[in-house]
């Protein structure tokens, strides 16, 4: 029974009270009531979401744009899968690069077998693609032919008509010249002729557009064949790269080669015919040793994957958020304590708070950028490259700019809420402090801050939310590897999967934002002493 209440309390604190009835049901508490609650607050929302998905799938294919198809849920899932696949492949490549000995040979054999298999598959699919291309062409031709011939006929006809009109106007011009007709008649004729030409062109355009439309119509079997070839060819290419990484590009292989070469140089001492050759050989030996050393510590440089992006984004937002906290809370306390300070800060806050993160990013690139004339040797980055997990993220100036931008935008809610929390200190608590004769520091730590904590944390939660939103924009602009850059790059790729990837990123960003918010809620609940809780 103890456990049950712990779980319930946990759900409550973390803002997942909606699952309360599930736990109660599991413990057999008033099953009917729980089932009703589950039905209302879990099953109905789930059905609603499913309906939304279904609606998306129904509407998406109907909405055509020139920039591409609006993705349905299946395409978004596919995009998620592909991103995962890319990440997995990069992981495998990294491992392959480092494989050595029997392990390498065994893997190599496996990979070679896979390649043989894949080659056959790809050839088969390519043949299929050829057939489909032919099929597409013939069906397209069949569709185009009637329109095309209509178009050609019409065009010829109009050309004739236009020539006739030209001849007519020429004739009329002669008559005008001979003063047989009024010039106004010629003008009228020309006007009419122009209108006619315009109308004819419009008519032709309609047919032309029809042709274009037919040409851009998708032919499902061809699309399918193409995507099949693409995915298998990608897989084949990956396997071939693996093969290379297990042979010529493998670290242990390269090291072995270098060691052999070193042996060769060492042997050349024996056969050296002059002093200078001995010297050269010795120099060569020294260099070779250095190069072996370097090879031995080499690591594969994998492409950035969605998982790295996620880690970097989360890290950046946390760093930015902490910066905001470190700056915002003390300033907020000062504002709350001192009316003059508050009066000084108010205009600054009022002016800077509404500024867009994009502007801040550019400003930070200039201001903060000046601190890193040479990022490779800057102590900050050197230090970051020595921290276990952080080093895998690759801390760079772009990340610092993004974090600063996050901090700048996330600062205000923390600051304002802290100031409010400090200001709205209960007068009774002030009296307690006076009666107890607490000094300034004790008042601050024992009365003011604890009493302001619920409001401070409410501010922090807003800060975190703002920070996460800002980060995505900042990353897109600063091209700091992260989810923002992922979205931006995808947009720039302009491939058939672009929209699906952006939608996928949308979900990833949303879910991470949700998790961050939940964490903040839990923290807020933990420090809130009045049990009022936080709104969800």
């Amino acid at each position, binding site marked *: 029974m103890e456990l049950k209440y712990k779980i319930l309390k946990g759900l409550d604190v973390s803002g997942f009270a909606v699952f309360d009835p599930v736990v109660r049901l599991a413990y057999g508490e008033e099953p009917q009531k729980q089932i009703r609650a589950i039905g209302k607050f879990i099953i109905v929302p789930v059905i609603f979401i499913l309906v939304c998905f279904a609606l998306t799938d129904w509407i998406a294919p109907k909405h055509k744009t*020139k*920039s*591409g198809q609006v993705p349905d849920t299946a395409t978004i899932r596919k995009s998620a899968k592909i991103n995962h696949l*890319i990440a997995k492949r990069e992981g495998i490549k990294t491992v392959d690069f480092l494989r050595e000995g029997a392990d390498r040979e065994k893997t190599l054999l496996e990979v070679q077998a896979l390649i043989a298999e894949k080659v056959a598959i790809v050839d088969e699919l390519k043949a299929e693609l050829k057939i489909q291309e032919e099929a597409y062409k013939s069906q397209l031709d069949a569709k185009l032919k009637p329109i095309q011939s209509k178009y050609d006929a019409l065009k010829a006809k109009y050309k004739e008509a236009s020539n006739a009109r030209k001849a007519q106007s020429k004739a009329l011009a002669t008559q005008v010249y001979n003063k047989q007709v009024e010039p106004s008649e010629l003008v009228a004729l020309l006007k009419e002729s122009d209108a006619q030409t315009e109308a004819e*062109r419009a008519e032709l*355009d309609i047919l032309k557009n029809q042709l*274009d439309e037919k*040409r*851009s119509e998708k032919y499902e079997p061809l699309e399918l064949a*193409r995507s099949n070839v*693409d995915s298998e*060819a*990608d897989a084949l*290419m990956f396997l071939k*790269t693996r093969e*290379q990484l297990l042979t*010529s*590009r493998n670290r242990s292989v*390269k090291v072995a080669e*270098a060691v052999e*070469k070193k042996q060769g140089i060492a042997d050349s001492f024996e056969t050296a015919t002059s002093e200078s050759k001995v010297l050269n050989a010795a120099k*060569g030996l020294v*260099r*070779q040793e*250095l*190069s072996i050393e*370097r*090879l031995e510590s*080499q*690591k*594969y*440089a994998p*492409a*950035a994957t969605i998982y790295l992006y996620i880690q970097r984004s989360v890290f950046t937002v946390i760093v930015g958020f902490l910066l905001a906290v470190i700056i915002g809370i003390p300033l907020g306390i000062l504002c709350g304590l001192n009316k003059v300070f508050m009066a000084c800060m108010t205009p600054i806050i009022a002016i800077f708070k509404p500024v867009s993160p994009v502007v801040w990013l550019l400003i930070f*690139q200039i201001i903060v*950028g000046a601190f*890193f*004339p*040479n*990022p*490779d040797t800057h102590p900050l980055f050197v230090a970051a490259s020595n921290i276990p997990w952080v080093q895998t993220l690759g801390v*760079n*100036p*772009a990340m610092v700019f993004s974090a600063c931008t996050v901090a700048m935008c996330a600062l205000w809610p923390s600051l304002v809420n802290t100031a409010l929390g400090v200001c709205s200190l209960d007068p009774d608590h002030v009296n307690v402090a006076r009666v107890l004769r607490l000094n300034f520091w004790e008042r601050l730590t024992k009365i003011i801050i604890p009493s302001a904590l619920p409001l401070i944390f409410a501010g922090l939660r807003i800060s975190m939310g703002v920070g996460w939103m800002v980060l995505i924009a900042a990353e*897109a*602009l600063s*091209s700091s*590897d992260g989810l923002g*850059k992922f979205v*931006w*790059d*995808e*947009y*720039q*790729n*302009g*491939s*058939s*999967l672009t929209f699906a*990837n952006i939608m996928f990123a949308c979900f990833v960003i949303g879910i991470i934002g949700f998790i961050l918010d939940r964490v903040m809620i839990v923290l807020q609940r933990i420090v809130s002493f009045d049990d009022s809780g936080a709104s969800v």
Partner: protein
Amino acid sequence: MKVYNTRKLNSARKLSKLNLVFGLGMMVSTVSAETLDVEKDSLKFGFIKLTDCAPIVIAKEKGFFEEEGLQVEVIAQPNWKQLLDNVITGELDGAHMLSGQPIGATIGFGTQAHIVTAYTLDLNGNAITVSNSVWEKMQANDPALDTPNPKHPITADALVPVVQEKLDLGEKLKMGMVFPVSTHNYEIRYWLAASGINPGFYTSEDQKGFTGAQVELSVTPPPQMPATLESGNISGYCVGEPWNQQAVAKGIGVPVVTNYDIWKNNPEKVFGVSKKWADENPNTHLAVVKALIRAGKWLDEVDASGTLINREEAVRILSQPNYVGADFDVIKNSMTGYFFFQKTDKRLMPEFNVFFKNHASFPWYSDGVWFLTQMRRWGQITETKSADWYHETAKEIYLPEVYLEAAALLVEEGHLDPSEVPAFDANQKWAGYKPATPASDFIDGIAYDGRDPVGYLNAHKIGNKD
């Protein structure tokens, strides 16, 4: 490894020594075929999502960098400005750059920094695309264009009435290019000016280049070109691939001319590094150039029938989302030697992208001089310069000596045939200058000789003259 650390060596002397390798067919014995003693072995290179970043991507994916003992991260950059800034701040070790970028940066147009290049990534590869409505008007103006396969090259003559029509309305036709010092900017200006359209001048006050413009050219990052065209903010653009083919695929515009038709085999992108980086990491630089040369050669490899054999694989790699990321089929067109001008107009363009053949990757001084003349022509260089200034500036930026040394090592390692390296005699006055480009290679029929920049400049009807 040899002399490279002691760069104090008079460069002329060194070049003459290198020249012996090719000029006299003798091997320099001190060059040994071991991995270079690189100063820095994990590098970051930036690129913009364009197919002409291929040599960098290929050198990584095919392991050419690794063979030089380098682990390289290749990172997409959002725009040319940031790419350059990242190279200057040291965030990137080197990058895929517009040919004009090292020059612009070095002479201080835009961000000032000394950037150098020892490798030209590719030739050609750009096209000018106009929106469907502009194309229809052009067709109306010139009925010869109103066929599924109009005759090329298409000049801007048919565009003149469209521009005039806009001017009559008190507006200006707006077109996009990717960067003030990009080849695209000069190419689209060249194309417009060849038909007598004034594309506008830069002045010391007007850094947008709108002064006197009949057509306003504004900067848009390449990947955003199609979207910007579609949204109607611009009526046309000049950009690299795949963004012209993308317009065709999406049916939002029509490429009218490739830069191959504007200037046959014009230099397009370079591999740029900061001078500081090059000085601090001479061996690394050499190793990088070696890997790039091999990648370029791999990209241009042909079989007996002259078909490019590795391009499809390259396209497969480039279409990965972390590189160019566009669909395989879209990139494939231009990279495998085809170009769609319309959905119905697919043409063979085997030299749309040249990465290596005909000494394409060599950093010619004359290429640098051409860009300098264009900067002067359009007012990015505000004052008159002497011919010597052009030559000296080009020599500050282009480093053929690094290319030659890398090539020499590759020849020795058996990766390169001596014939694939251009002859270079440092004792000759015009070493590193291409022979004069004949008038027929330019859309306006004006010949270019890098040895006479001022003469070339004065030959143009529209543009600053000295």
